[in-house]
């Protein structure tokens, strides 16, 4: 009886643990990918700006790169604000 109970508990715990462990992994991957994209966009914008100042690169590419960087930074800042806001909301929860 005791053994069967522990076996059943182990059997229940196993599938419950697996998705719980897998889900943050997938979300973390997506998040990492988004951050990498963001970093790439910003780096490209900086490279274009540097090239425009040092060598006479096409100003259209500079404007495009800066607009895309602005878009990416704005999005990242907005998401960060939302995350911080959610965190503070949790902190304010009466325990």
């Amino acid at each position, binding site marked *: 009886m005791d053994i069967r109970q522990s076996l059943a508990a182990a059997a229940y715990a196993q599938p419950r643990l697996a998705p719980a462990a897998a889900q943050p992994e997938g979300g973390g991957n997506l998040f990492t990918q988004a951050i990498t994209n963001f970093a790439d966009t910003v780096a490209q914008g900086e490279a274009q700006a540097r090239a425009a100042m040092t060598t006479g690169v*096409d100003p*259209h*590419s500079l*404007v*495009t790169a800066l*607009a*895309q960087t*602005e*878009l*990416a930074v*704005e*999005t990242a800042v*907005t*998401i960060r*604000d*939302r995350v911080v806001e959610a965190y503070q909301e949790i902190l304010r929860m009466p325990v």
Partner: protein
Amino acid sequence: MTDFSNALSVAASGMRAQAQRLTHVSENIANADTPGYHRKITSFEVERAMGAPDGAVRPGPVRLDQTTLPMIFDPSHPMADEAGTYEGSNVDLVIELADAREAQRSYEANLRIFDQIRQMSSSLNELLRR
């Protein structure tokens, strides 16, 4: 965000192509009095380079206007033949000015689109911020 990003690239490619066209127009105007000069015609084609977004435009190969060059009568000109004439350029300033105006209008249209894309993305972020 990739849609906005692609649209920005396409609008920038349009602006780049129109700038190239304006370069050729200014070359034509500068050479309006050059003997034997054929005016340059800018063509446009769809960008097929790797990494470029679908639908971007790029200036195609430059073609020369093959209409016959006018014979200008000026016996004192160094290039004049026995009849006292030499080949001028086939640049028509009215056509060049019209072409330049067209390039300007097209450039402005692309610029407006560029600005509109930025405004749209800003309003989307504004919605996210609330």
